[in-house]
Protein backbone atom coordinates (compact mmCIF):
# COMPACT_ATOMS: atom_id res chain seq x y z
CA UNK A 1 0.00 0.00 0.00
CA UNK A 2 2.83 2.37 0.88
CA UNK A 3 4.55 1.56 -2.42
CA UNK A 4 1.35 2.55 -4.21
CA UNK A 5 1.50 5.96 -2.55
CA UNK A 6 -1.43 5.28 -0.25
CA UNK A 7 -1.57 6.46 3.29
CA UNK A 8 -3.99 4.02 4.90
CA UNK A 9 -5.73 5.36 8.02
CA UNK A 10 -4.71 3.51 11.19
CA UNK A 11 -8.35 2.65 11.92
CA UNK A 12 -8.60 0.74 8.64
CA UNK A 13 -5.36 -1.22 8.87
CA UNK A 14 -6.53 -4.29 10.77
CA UNK A 15 -9.49 -4.95 8.46
CA UNK A 16 -7.48 -4.23 5.32
CA UNK A 17 -4.74 -6.58 6.50
CA UNK A 18 -7.13 -9.45 7.18
CA UNK A 19 -8.69 -9.07 3.71
CA UNK A 20 -5.20 -8.82 2.22
CA UNK A 21 -4.34 -12.25 3.64
CA UNK A 22 -7.45 -13.74 2.01
CA UNK A 23 -6.62 -11.90 -1.22
CA UNK A 24 -3.17 -13.50 -1.33
CA UNK A 25 -4.78 -16.94 -1.13
CA UNK A 26 -7.00 -15.98 -4.05
CA UNK A 27 -4.03 -14.90 -6.12
CA UNK A 28 -2.63 -18.39 -5.69
CA UNK A 29 -5.93 -19.79 -6.99
CA UNK A 30 -5.70 -17.53 -10.07
CA UNK A 31 -2.16 -18.66 -10.86
CA UNK A 32 -3.34 -22.28 -10.45
CA UNK A 33 -5.98 -21.71 -13.13
CA UNK A 34 -3.39 -20.02 -15.33
CA UNK A 35 -1.25 -23.12 -15.36
CA UNK A 36 -4.21 -24.90 -17.01
CA UNK A 37 -4.98 -21.89 -19.21
CA UNK A 38 -1.47 -21.99 -20.63
CA UNK A 39 -2.50 -25.07 -22.54
CA UNK A 40 -5.41 -23.28 -24.23
CA UNK A 41 -4.50 -21.64 -27.52
CA UNK A 42 -4.92 -17.91 -27.78
CA UNK A 43 -6.79 -16.82 -30.94
CA UNK A 44 -3.74 -14.78 -31.95
CA UNK A 45 -1.54 -17.90 -31.84
CA UNK A 46 -2.77 -18.79 -35.32
CA UNK A 47 -1.85 -15.46 -36.83
CA UNK A 48 1.52 -15.49 -38.54
CA UNK A 49 3.12 -12.14 -39.05
CA UNK A 50 5.04 -11.49 -42.22
CA UNK A 51 7.49 -8.93 -40.99
CA UNK A 52 8.56 -7.98 -44.48
CA UNK A 53 5.08 -6.55 -45.02
CA UNK A 54 5.25 -4.24 -42.03
Amino acid sequence: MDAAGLSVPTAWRSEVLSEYVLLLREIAVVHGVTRRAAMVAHPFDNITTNRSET
Partner: protein
Amino acid sequence: VTFADQSIAELGHALRAGVMSCEELARDALARIDRANGALAAFVTITAERAIEEARQADRDFAAGIDKGPMQGIPYGVKDIFDVAGVATTCYSKLHLHSRVQADSAVVAALRAAGAVLLGKLATHEFAFYGPDFDLPFPPARNPWDLSRLTGGSSTGSGAAIAAGLVRFATGSDTGGSIRTPSAWCGLVGLKPTFGLLPRRGVFPLSWSFDVVGPLARSVEDCAIALGTMAGVGNAPGSDYQQRLELGVRGFRVGLLREFLSHVDAEVLAGVEEVASMLRKDGAVVDDVVLPPLAEYGATARAIIFSEGFHLHRKALQEHLGDFGPVNGKRLILGAAYSASDYIAALSARRLLAAKVQEALQRYDVLLCATALRTAPSFSQTSASPFKPSAPSLTNPFNLSGNPAMSVPIGLDTAGLPRGVQIVGRLFDEATLLRVGRTIEKRSGWESVAMPRFDNPASETA
Protein backbone atom coordinates in the same frame (compact mmCIF):
# COMPACT_ATOMS: atom_id res chain seq x y z
CA VAL B 1 -55.58 7.33 -8.95
CA THR B 2 -52.41 5.25 -8.98
CA PHE B 3 -50.86 3.54 -11.95
CA ALA B 4 -48.27 1.58 -9.97
CA ASP B 5 -49.60 -1.86 -10.82
CA GLN B 6 -49.99 -1.37 -14.56
CA SER B 7 -47.35 -2.79 -16.86
CA ILE B 8 -45.52 -0.67 -19.41
CA ALA B 9 -47.73 -2.16 -22.14
CA GLU B 10 -50.93 -1.46 -20.13
CA LEU B 11 -49.82 2.10 -19.43
CA GLY B 12 -49.08 2.49 -23.14
CA HIS B 13 -52.60 1.34 -24.04
CA ALA B 14 -54.09 3.77 -21.50
CA LEU B 15 -52.02 6.67 -22.86
CA ARG B 16 -53.00 5.87 -26.45
CA ALA B 17 -56.68 5.48 -25.50
CA GLY B 18 -56.66 8.87 -23.81
CA VAL B 19 -57.53 7.40 -20.37
CA MET B 20 -54.80 9.67 -19.01
CA SER B 21 -52.12 11.95 -20.38
CA CYS B 22 -48.38 11.43 -20.12
CA GLU B 23 -48.23 14.52 -17.89
CA GLU B 24 -50.85 13.08 -15.52
CA LEU B 25 -48.88 9.84 -15.34
CA ALA B 26 -45.63 11.71 -14.63
CA ARG B 27 -47.26 13.87 -11.95
CA ASP B 28 -48.78 10.78 -10.31
CA ALA B 29 -45.35 9.13 -10.20
CA LEU B 30 -43.68 12.28 -8.84
CA ALA B 31 -46.32 12.51 -6.10
CA ARG B 32 -45.72 8.88 -5.13
CA ILE B 33 -41.95 9.52 -4.98
CA ASP B 34 -42.60 12.54 -2.79
CA ARG B 35 -44.59 10.41 -0.33
CA ALA B 36 -42.30 7.37 -0.27
CA ASN B 37 -38.75 8.60 -0.73
CA GLY B 38 -38.23 9.73 2.85
CA ALA B 39 -38.58 6.13 4.01
CA LEU B 40 -36.86 4.45 1.06
CA ALA B 41 -34.04 6.83 0.06
CA ALA B 42 -34.41 5.40 -3.45
CA PHE B 43 -34.04 8.69 -5.35
CA VAL B 44 -31.08 10.99 -4.73
CA THR B 45 -32.12 13.63 -7.30
CA ILE B 46 -35.63 14.22 -8.64
CA THR B 47 -35.68 15.78 -12.11
CA ALA B 48 -39.28 17.04 -11.92
CA GLU B 49 -38.81 19.87 -14.40
CA ARG B 50 -37.34 17.57 -17.05
CA ALA B 51 -40.02 14.95 -16.32
CA ILE B 52 -42.86 17.39 -16.98
CA GLU B 53 -41.13 18.75 -20.08
CA GLU B 54 -40.60 15.23 -21.49
CA ALA B 55 -44.15 14.18 -20.58
CA ARG B 56 -45.63 17.22 -22.31
CA GLN B 57 -43.52 16.49 -25.39
CA ALA B 58 -44.83 12.90 -25.38
CA ASP B 59 -48.39 14.26 -25.16
CA ARG B 60 -47.74 16.67 -28.04
CA ASP B 61 -46.32 13.79 -30.09
CA PHE B 62 -49.37 11.59 -29.46
CA ALA B 63 -51.64 14.51 -30.40
CA ALA B 64 -49.69 14.97 -33.64
CA GLY B 65 -49.94 11.26 -34.47
CA ILE B 66 -46.28 10.59 -33.67
CA ASP B 67 -45.87 7.24 -31.91
CA LYS B 68 -42.29 6.44 -30.95
CA GLY B 69 -43.15 3.02 -29.54
CA PRO B 70 -43.81 1.34 -26.20
CA MET B 71 -41.74 3.74 -24.07
CA GLN B 72 -43.49 6.94 -25.12
CA GLY B 73 -44.72 8.66 -21.96
CA ILE B 74 -43.43 5.93 -19.59
CA PRO B 75 -41.67 7.22 -16.42
CA TYR B 76 -38.35 5.75 -15.27
CA GLY B 77 -35.26 6.42 -13.14
CA VAL B 78 -31.51 6.05 -13.68
CA LYS B 79 -28.79 4.88 -11.32
CA ASP B 80 -26.69 7.87 -10.29
CA ILE B 81 -23.66 6.79 -12.29
CA PHE B 82 -25.47 7.54 -15.58
CA ASP B 83 -24.95 11.05 -16.93
CA VAL B 84 -28.01 13.25 -17.31
CA ALA B 85 -27.39 16.66 -18.90
CA GLY B 86 -27.38 19.48 -16.37
CA VAL B 87 -27.48 17.20 -13.30
CA ALA B 88 -24.47 16.10 -11.23
CA THR B 89 -23.50 12.43 -11.50
CA THR B 90 -22.64 12.00 -7.84
CA CYS B 91 -21.80 8.26 -7.84
CA TYR B 92 -22.94 8.66 -4.18
CA SER B 93 -19.48 10.07 -3.40
CA LYS B 94 -18.23 13.23 -1.72
CA LEU B 95 -15.69 13.39 -4.55
CA HIS B 96 -18.32 13.84 -7.28
CA LEU B 97 -20.99 15.92 -5.55
CA HIS B 98 -20.52 18.87 -7.86
CA SER B 99 -19.63 17.16 -11.12
CA ARG B 100 -20.77 19.10 -14.18
CA VAL B 101 -22.49 17.04 -16.82
CA GLN B 102 -23.05 18.44 -20.30
CA ALA B 103 -24.75 15.58 -22.11
CA ASP B 104 -26.96 12.56 -21.51
CA SER B 105 -25.36 9.13 -21.36
CA ALA B 106 -26.03 7.03 -24.48
CA VAL B 107 -28.72 4.94 -22.78
CA VAL B 108 -30.54 7.98 -21.38
CA ALA B 109 -30.38 9.58 -24.83
CA ALA B 110 -31.89 6.42 -26.37
CA LEU B 111 -34.70 6.42 -23.80
CA ARG B 112 -35.35 10.12 -24.42
CA ALA B 113 -35.46 9.54 -28.17
CA ALA B 114 -38.03 6.81 -27.53
CA GLY B 115 -40.21 9.24 -25.58
CA ALA B 116 -39.57 7.91 -22.04
CA VAL B 117 -39.94 10.32 -19.11
CA LEU B 118 -37.00 10.64 -16.68
CA LEU B 119 -38.14 11.15 -13.06
CA GLY B 120 -34.72 11.30 -11.43
CA LYS B 121 -31.50 9.66 -10.34
CA LEU B 122 -31.33 6.65 -8.06
CA ALA B 123 -29.18 5.56 -5.13
CA THR B 124 -26.13 3.34 -5.59
CA HIS B 125 -23.23 2.04 -3.55
CA GLU B 126 -20.39 4.55 -3.80
CA PHE B 127 -18.89 4.29 -7.31
CA ALA B 128 -21.08 1.20 -7.87
CA PHE B 129 -18.71 -0.92 -5.76
CA TYR B 130 -19.30 -2.01 -2.16
CA GLY B 131 -21.88 -1.00 0.44
CA PRO B 132 -24.01 -0.16 2.26
CA ASP B 133 -22.14 2.68 3.91
CA PHE B 134 -23.72 5.23 6.26
CA ASP B 135 -20.69 7.50 5.99
CA LEU B 136 -21.59 8.92 2.57
CA PRO B 137 -23.32 12.17 1.56
CA PHE B 138 -26.61 10.26 1.09
CA PRO B 139 -28.25 7.44 3.05
CA PRO B 140 -28.41 3.90 1.65
CA ALA B 141 -31.65 2.87 -0.05
CA ARG B 142 -33.93 0.59 1.95
CA ASN B 143 -35.75 -2.55 0.88
CA PRO B 144 -39.50 -1.88 0.45
CA TRP B 145 -40.29 -5.45 1.58
CA ASP B 146 -38.72 -4.66 4.98
CA LEU B 147 -37.15 -1.27 5.60
CA SER B 148 -34.62 -2.77 8.03
CA ARG B 149 -33.12 -4.80 5.19
CA LEU B 150 -30.71 -4.16 2.32
CA THR B 151 -31.89 -3.82 -1.25
CA GLY B 152 -28.74 -5.46 -2.54
CA GLY B 153 -26.30 -3.52 -4.63
CA SER B 154 -24.96 -1.71 -6.18
CA SER B 155 -28.11 -0.66 -8.09
CA THR B 156 -29.79 -0.05 -4.73
CA GLY B 157 -32.17 2.78 -5.60
CA SER B 158 -33.28 1.05 -8.79
CA GLY B 159 -34.30 -1.98 -6.73
CA ALA B 160 -36.11 0.08 -4.07
CA ALA B 161 -37.95 2.35 -6.52
CA ILE B 162 -39.35 -0.43 -8.67
CA ALA B 163 -40.33 -2.71 -5.77
CA ALA B 164 -42.17 0.21 -4.13
CA GLY B 165 -44.12 0.90 -7.33
CA LEU B 166 -42.53 4.29 -7.99
CA VAL B 167 -41.40 3.28 -11.51
CA ARG B 168 -41.87 0.19 -13.67
CA PHE B 169 -38.24 0.07 -14.74
CA ALA B 170 -34.90 1.70 -14.09
CA THR B 171 -31.37 1.49 -15.39
CA GLY B 172 -28.63 -0.30 -13.49
CA SER B 173 -25.05 -1.41 -14.02
CA ASP B 174 -23.57 -4.81 -13.31
CA THR B 175 -19.87 -5.47 -12.78
CA GLY B 176 -20.19 -8.45 -10.43
CA GLY B 177 -23.93 -8.75 -9.82
CA SER B 178 -25.17 -5.19 -9.27
CA ILE B 179 -28.33 -5.60 -11.37
CA ARG B 180 -29.14 -9.18 -10.41
CA THR B 181 -28.63 -9.03 -6.62
CA PRO B 182 -31.03 -6.11 -5.98
CA SER B 183 -33.46 -7.78 -8.38
CA ALA B 184 -33.36 -10.99 -6.33
CA TRP B 185 -33.67 -9.23 -2.98
CA CYS B 186 -36.40 -6.79 -4.07
CA GLY B 187 -38.53 -9.24 -6.11
CA LEU B 188 -37.72 -7.85 -9.56
CA VAL B 189 -36.58 -8.98 -12.96
CA GLY B 190 -33.03 -7.80 -13.65
CA LEU B 191 -31.10 -8.52 -16.82
CA LYS B 192 -27.34 -8.17 -17.19
CA PRO B 193 -26.98 -8.14 -20.97
CA THR B 194 -24.11 -9.64 -22.95
CA PHE B 195 -20.92 -7.61 -22.48
CA GLY B 196 -20.92 -4.98 -25.20
CA LEU B 197 -24.63 -5.15 -26.15
CA LEU B 198 -25.52 -1.77 -24.63
CA PRO B 199 -23.41 1.39 -24.94
CA ARG B 200 -21.62 2.57 -21.77
CA ARG B 201 -20.85 6.11 -22.95
CA GLY B 202 -21.63 8.54 -20.15
CA VAL B 203 -21.73 5.90 -17.41
CA PHE B 204 -19.11 6.18 -14.67
CA PRO B 205 -16.95 3.03 -14.90
CA LEU B 206 -15.63 0.61 -12.29
CA SER B 207 -13.97 -2.14 -14.33
CA TRP B 208 -13.80 -1.56 -18.06
CA SER B 209 -13.61 -5.23 -18.99
CA PHE B 210 -16.52 -6.28 -16.74
CA ASP B 211 -18.98 -3.33 -16.62
CA VAL B 212 -22.29 -3.59 -18.43
CA VAL B 213 -25.47 -1.56 -18.15
CA GLY B 214 -28.98 -2.99 -18.26
CA PRO B 215 -32.55 -2.82 -17.01
CA LEU B 216 -34.25 -3.75 -13.74
CA ALA B 217 -38.03 -4.05 -14.08
CA ARG B 218 -41.23 -5.25 -12.43
CA SER B 219 -41.89 -8.02 -14.96
CA VAL B 220 -40.20 -9.94 -17.74
CA GLU B 221 -42.29 -8.12 -20.35
CA ASP B 222 -41.35 -4.72 -18.90
CA CYS B 223 -37.71 -5.85 -18.90
CA ALA B 224 -37.92 -6.92 -22.56
CA ILE B 225 -39.36 -3.55 -23.56
CA ALA B 226 -36.74 -1.66 -21.55
CA LEU B 227 -33.87 -3.72 -22.98
CA GLY B 228 -35.14 -3.24 -26.53
CA THR B 229 -35.35 0.51 -26.08
CA MET B 230 -31.96 0.77 -24.40
CA ALA B 231 -30.45 -1.26 -27.24
CA GLY B 232 -32.11 0.99 -29.80
CA VAL B 233 -34.22 -1.78 -31.33
CA GLY B 234 -37.37 -1.23 -29.30
CA ASN B 235 -38.97 1.59 -31.21
CA ALA B 236 -40.96 -0.69 -33.45
CA PRO B 237 -43.83 -2.50 -31.70
CA GLY B 238 -43.01 -6.19 -31.25
CA SER B 239 -39.25 -5.95 -31.19
CA ASP B 240 -37.25 -9.19 -31.02
CA TYR B 241 -37.14 -9.27 -27.25
CA GLN B 242 -40.94 -9.30 -26.90
CA GLN B 243 -41.90 -11.46 -29.87
CA ARG B 244 -41.11 -14.87 -28.40
CA LEU B 245 -41.89 -14.28 -24.71
CA GLU B 246 -44.97 -16.50 -24.59
CA LEU B 247 -43.64 -19.44 -26.60
CA GLY B 248 -42.64 -21.56 -23.59
CA VAL B 249 -39.69 -23.91 -23.09
CA ARG B 250 -40.80 -27.19 -24.68
CA GLY B 251 -37.73 -28.95 -26.08
CA PHE B 252 -35.28 -26.61 -24.36
CA ARG B 253 -32.22 -28.02 -22.62
CA VAL B 254 -31.50 -26.49 -19.23
CA GLY B 255 -28.19 -27.04 -17.40
CA LEU B 256 -28.58 -26.95 -13.61
CA LEU B 257 -25.40 -25.67 -11.91
CA ARG B 258 -25.91 -27.82 -8.82
CA GLU B 259 -22.33 -27.52 -7.57
CA PHE B 260 -22.72 -23.74 -7.43
CA LEU B 261 -25.48 -24.19 -4.86
CA SER B 262 -23.51 -25.72 -1.97
CA HIS B 263 -23.49 -22.49 0.09
CA VAL B 264 -27.08 -21.51 -0.74
CA ASP B 265 -29.69 -21.14 1.99
CA ALA B 266 -32.26 -24.00 2.17
CA GLU B 267 -35.25 -21.90 1.11
CA VAL B 268 -33.45 -20.42 -1.89
CA LEU B 269 -32.19 -23.88 -2.84
CA ALA B 270 -35.73 -25.26 -2.66
CA GLY B 271 -36.79 -22.47 -5.01
CA VAL B 272 -34.18 -23.47 -7.60
CA GLU B 273 -35.35 -27.11 -7.38
CA GLU B 274 -38.97 -26.00 -7.82
CA VAL B 275 -38.02 -24.06 -10.94
CA ALA B 276 -36.14 -27.07 -12.36
CA SER B 277 -39.21 -29.19 -11.72
CA MET B 278 -41.65 -26.70 -13.32
CA LEU B 279 -39.42 -26.38 -16.40
CA ARG B 280 -39.42 -30.19 -16.75
CA LYS B 281 -43.22 -30.19 -16.49
CA ASP B 282 -43.31 -27.61 -19.29
CA GLY B 283 -41.33 -29.88 -21.58
CA ALA B 284 -37.73 -28.82 -20.97
CA VAL B 285 -34.93 -31.30 -20.29
CA VAL B 286 -33.04 -30.36 -17.13
CA ASP B 287 -29.65 -31.98 -16.43
CA ASP B 288 -26.94 -31.23 -13.92
CA VAL B 289 -23.95 -29.49 -15.50
CA VAL B 290 -20.53 -28.94 -13.98
CA LEU B 291 -18.33 -25.88 -14.42
CA PRO B 292 -14.95 -25.25 -12.75
CA PRO B 293 -15.17 -24.40 -9.02
CA LEU B 294 -16.93 -21.17 -8.07
CA ALA B 295 -13.80 -20.16 -6.11
CA GLU B 296 -11.81 -19.99 -9.37
CA TYR B 297 -14.37 -17.71 -10.99
CA GLY B 298 -14.52 -15.47 -7.90
CA ALA B 299 -10.76 -15.18 -7.45
CA THR B 300 -10.21 -14.40 -11.13
CA ALA B 301 -13.07 -11.91 -11.33
CA ARG B 302 -11.86 -10.06 -8.23
CA ALA B 303 -8.26 -9.92 -9.47
CA ILE B 304 -9.45 -8.14 -12.61
CA ILE B 305 -12.18 -5.94 -11.09
CA PHE B 306 -10.04 -4.83 -8.13
CA SER B 307 -7.02 -4.12 -10.38
CA GLU B 308 -9.06 -2.13 -12.89
CA GLY B 309 -11.00 -0.34 -10.13
CA PHE B 310 -7.78 0.65 -8.35
CA HIS B 311 -6.27 1.89 -11.60
CA LEU B 312 -9.35 4.02 -12.25
CA HIS B 313 -9.39 5.59 -8.76
CA ARG B 314 -5.63 5.57 -8.10
CA LYS B 315 -5.07 9.33 -8.10
CA ALA B 316 -8.11 10.05 -5.92
CA LEU B 317 -7.13 7.25 -3.51
CA GLN B 318 -3.63 8.70 -3.20
CA GLU B 319 -4.78 12.29 -2.71
CA HIS B 320 -8.25 12.09 -1.13
CA LEU B 321 -8.57 8.68 0.55
CA GLY B 322 -10.43 10.25 3.48
CA ASP B 323 -13.19 11.40 1.14
CA PHE B 324 -14.09 7.83 0.17
CA GLY B 325 -16.65 6.00 2.29
CA PRO B 326 -14.79 3.55 4.53
CA VAL B 327 -16.59 0.46 3.22
CA ASN B 328 -15.57 1.23 -0.32
CA GLY B 329 -12.21 2.87 0.38
CA LYS B 330 -10.93 -0.21 2.24
CA ARG B 331 -11.81 -2.42 -0.72
CA LEU B 332 -10.56 -0.12 -3.47
CA ILE B 333 -7.09 0.17 -1.96
CA LEU B 334 -6.77 -3.62 -1.97
CA GLY B 335 -6.49 -3.36 -5.75
CA ALA B 336 -2.95 -2.10 -5.16
CA ALA B 337 -2.02 -5.57 -3.87
CA TYR B 338 -2.30 -7.21 -7.29
CA SER B 339 0.88 -7.11 -9.36
CA ALA B 340 0.94 -6.74 -13.15
CA SER B 341 1.80 -10.45 -13.26
CA ASP B 342 -1.28 -11.29 -11.18
CA TYR B 343 -3.49 -9.22 -13.46
CA ILE B 344 -2.11 -10.90 -16.58
CA ALA B 345 -2.53 -14.31 -14.96
CA ALA B 346 -6.15 -13.40 -14.25
CA LEU B 347 -6.73 -12.38 -17.87
CA SER B 348 -5.36 -15.73 -18.94
CA ALA B 349 -7.46 -17.62 -16.38
CA ARG B 350 -10.49 -15.69 -17.55
CA ARG B 351 -10.17 -17.15 -21.06
CA LEU B 352 -10.21 -20.71 -19.77
CA LEU B 353 -13.07 -20.16 -17.31
CA ALA B 354 -15.17 -18.25 -19.85
CA ALA B 355 -14.60 -20.98 -22.44
CA LYS B 356 -16.09 -23.52 -20.01
CA VAL B 357 -19.30 -21.48 -19.82
CA GLN B 358 -19.50 -21.27 -23.63
CA GLU B 359 -18.85 -25.03 -23.92
CA ALA B 360 -21.73 -25.75 -21.53
CA LEU B 361 -23.99 -23.46 -23.53
CA GLN B 362 -23.25 -25.39 -26.71
CA ARG B 363 -25.09 -28.30 -25.06
CA TYR B 364 -27.72 -26.29 -23.19
CA ASP B 365 -30.00 -23.39 -24.15
CA VAL B 366 -29.70 -21.84 -20.70
CA LEU B 367 -28.01 -22.52 -17.36
CA LEU B 368 -29.88 -22.32 -14.07
CA CYS B 369 -28.73 -21.53 -10.52
CA ALA B 370 -29.61 -19.15 -7.67
CA THR B 371 -28.95 -15.42 -7.93
CA ALA B 372 -27.89 -14.91 -4.31
CA LEU B 373 -26.99 -17.22 -1.44
CA ARG B 374 -29.96 -16.03 0.63
CA THR B 375 -32.75 -13.48 0.77
CA ALA B 376 -32.14 -9.86 1.80
CA PRO B 377 -30.11 -9.50 5.03
CA SER B 378 -30.74 -6.74 7.55
CA PHE B 379 -28.56 -3.64 7.92
CA SER B 380 -27.45 -4.92 11.32
CA GLN B 381 -25.87 -8.06 9.83
CA THR B 382 -22.24 -7.45 8.97
CA SER B 383 -21.65 -8.20 5.32
CA ALA B 384 -19.19 -11.00 4.68
CA SER B 385 -15.85 -10.23 3.08
CA PRO B 386 -15.96 -10.88 -0.68
CA PHE B 387 -12.75 -12.89 -0.21
CA LYS B 388 -14.33 -15.28 2.28
CA PRO B 389 -14.66 -18.72 0.67
CA SER B 390 -17.93 -19.42 2.52
CA ALA B 391 -19.70 -16.49 0.83
CA PRO B 392 -19.04 -16.91 -2.89
CA SER B 393 -20.71 -14.74 -5.52
CA LEU B 394 -23.08 -16.63 -7.80
CA THR B 395 -23.29 -13.73 -10.22
CA ASN B 396 -19.72 -12.77 -11.07
CA PRO B 397 -18.91 -15.95 -13.10
CA PHE B 398 -21.13 -14.54 -15.84
CA ASN B 399 -19.56 -11.10 -15.73
CA LEU B 400 -16.30 -12.93 -16.22
CA SER B 401 -17.68 -14.93 -19.16
CA GLY B 402 -19.65 -12.01 -20.63
CA ASN B 403 -22.87 -14.02 -21.01
CA PRO B 404 -26.30 -12.50 -20.50
CA ALA B 405 -27.77 -13.44 -17.11
CA MET B 406 -31.10 -12.63 -15.56
CA SER B 407 -32.62 -12.82 -12.09
CA VAL B 408 -36.29 -13.79 -11.98
CA PRO B 409 -38.43 -13.70 -8.82
CA ILE B 410 -40.15 -16.96 -7.90
CA GLY B 411 -41.89 -16.39 -4.57
CA LEU B 412 -41.39 -15.41 -0.95
CA ASP B 413 -39.53 -17.21 1.81
CA THR B 414 -41.08 -17.87 5.21
CA ALA B 415 -40.01 -14.39 6.37
CA GLY B 416 -41.96 -12.86 3.49
CA LEU B 417 -38.89 -11.85 1.49
CA PRO B 418 -38.46 -12.40 -2.26
CA ARG B 419 -36.40 -15.29 -3.61
CA GLY B 420 -34.86 -15.22 -7.07
CA VAL B 421 -33.27 -17.63 -9.52
CA GLN B 422 -30.61 -16.82 -12.07
CA ILE B 423 -30.67 -18.00 -15.67
CA VAL B 424 -27.74 -17.60 -18.02
CA GLY B 425 -27.90 -17.52 -21.80
CA ARG B 426 -25.69 -17.75 -24.85
CA LEU B 427 -23.82 -14.64 -25.92
CA PHE B 428 -26.24 -12.11 -27.46
CA ASP B 429 -29.20 -14.49 -26.98
CA GLU B 430 -31.15 -12.29 -24.57
CA ALA B 431 -34.36 -13.28 -26.39
CA THR B 432 -34.14 -16.90 -25.21
CA LEU B 433 -33.28 -15.77 -21.70
CA LEU B 434 -36.38 -13.56 -21.59
CA ARG B 435 -38.53 -16.39 -22.96
CA VAL B 436 -37.36 -18.81 -20.25
CA GLY B 437 -37.71 -16.04 -17.66
CA ARG B 438 -41.28 -15.41 -18.73
CA THR B 439 -42.11 -19.11 -18.32
CA ILE B 440 -40.62 -19.10 -14.80
CA GLU B 441 -42.51 -15.90 -13.92
CA LYS B 442 -45.81 -17.43 -15.05
CA ARG B 443 -45.38 -20.90 -13.59
CA SER B 444 -43.96 -19.80 -10.22
CA GLY B 445 -47.11 -17.85 -9.36
CA TRP B 446 -45.04 -14.71 -8.81
CA GLU B 447 -47.56 -12.58 -10.69
CA SER B 448 -50.13 -13.08 -7.92
CA VAL B 449 -47.73 -12.02 -5.12
CA ALA B 450 -48.72 -8.63 -3.69
CA MET B 451 -45.91 -6.10 -3.95
CA PRO B 452 -45.15 -3.68 -1.08
CA ARG B 453 -47.09 -0.42 -1.42
CA PHE B 454 -45.95 3.09 -0.62
CA ASP B 455 -48.83 4.91 -2.27
CA ASN B 456 -50.10 6.66 0.81
CA PRO B 457 -48.56 7.81 4.08
CA ALA B 458 -50.45 5.17 6.09
CA SER B 459 -48.90 2.28 4.17
CA GLU B 460 -45.39 3.53 4.88
CA THR B 461 -45.74 2.71 8.54
CA ALA B 462 -47.66 -0.54 8.04
